[in-house]
């Protein structure tokens, strides 16, 4: 009986200890640094833009990145291209339909292939569900994860104490996969869209 109680106590201690290492990183960025840049390179036209309306959170033990779970969302209406008419078309019903699909999301399903690149920098392979225009597809992408313990104070002018998690990833999607005018206007709007993700999450410590 005593042995059983000890085993339970150890198990609970391990569990509590494990939970204590998991941090919740909030990816809403009031400083406006986090961004997702997109680029389309068609034969007749090249389009570059960014999206900044980020939200969502990731729970992860920074010492074991395979534990990561969470969801990142980008507000569709936060997509900006320099030409106002082009932006109006992009958000319209015929293209991204921002009114019906207000968010573009990525939900982490699995993190694997962790490769250390530095003391707090690792390269990982993330598998997740990418949703755009109401269609969800599985995406596999390489990402660099930079854990910055104790750096939240600097980025919040000393208001908060905590850690930062920087996620950088470059990957490509096809608009035809997400039923965004598939096969149309390919000379001006390429099918392939290159995405460059540079986002920062903050885990506040009390």
């Amino acid at each position, binding site marked *: 009986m005593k042995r059983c109680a000890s085993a339970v106590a150890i198990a609970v201690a391990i569990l509590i200890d494990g939970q204590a290492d998991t941090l919740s990183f909030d990816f809403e960025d009031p400083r*406006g640094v986090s961004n997702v840049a997109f680029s389309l390179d068609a034969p007749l036209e090249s389009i570059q833009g*960014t999206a900044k309306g980020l939200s969502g959170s990731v729970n992860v033990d920074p010492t074991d990145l395979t534990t990561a779970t969470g969801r990142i969302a980008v507000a569709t209406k936060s997509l900006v291209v*320099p*030409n106002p008419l082009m932006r109006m078309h992009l958000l319209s019903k015929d293209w991204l339909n921002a009114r019906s699909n207000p968010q573009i999301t990525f939900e982490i399903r699995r993190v694997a292939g962790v490769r250390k690149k530095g003391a707090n920098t690792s390269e990982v392979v993330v598998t997740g569900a990418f949703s755009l225009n109401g269609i969800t597809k599985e995406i596999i992408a390489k990402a660099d994860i930079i854990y910055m313990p104790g*750096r939240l104070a*600097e980025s919040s002018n000393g208001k908060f104490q905590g850690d*930062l998690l920087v996620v950088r990833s470059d990957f490509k999607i096809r608009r035809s996969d997400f039923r965004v005018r598939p096969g149309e206007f390919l000379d001006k709007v390429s099918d392939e869209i290159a995405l460059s993700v*540079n986002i*920062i999450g903050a885990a506040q410590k009390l």
Partner: protein
Amino acid sequence: MKSAGSNKVVPLLRALAVLSAVAVIACWLSLGAHMGWSQTRVPAYKTDPITETTFTDYENRFLPGLDFLGAGLLGAAAIFALTLLIPRSRGEKLQ
């Protein structure tokens, strides 16, 4: 009276066409001679010193592109073309 007015309109319109074309070209050149579409938000690339993350900020200003240049020159050409439609001989006969 009428013929004298018509005679003055042609050189005036032609001067206006040339001035418009020059003004459009000067405006396009002085504001950056941008080779793409006109922009109302101009990207400015910045780097966050803490995370070394590069990000784009947009300045709300007008950057004329090739569409602006094309439309301006087309307008000037239209004004010039209009002067070719004004009959000169009619004015001379009325005198």
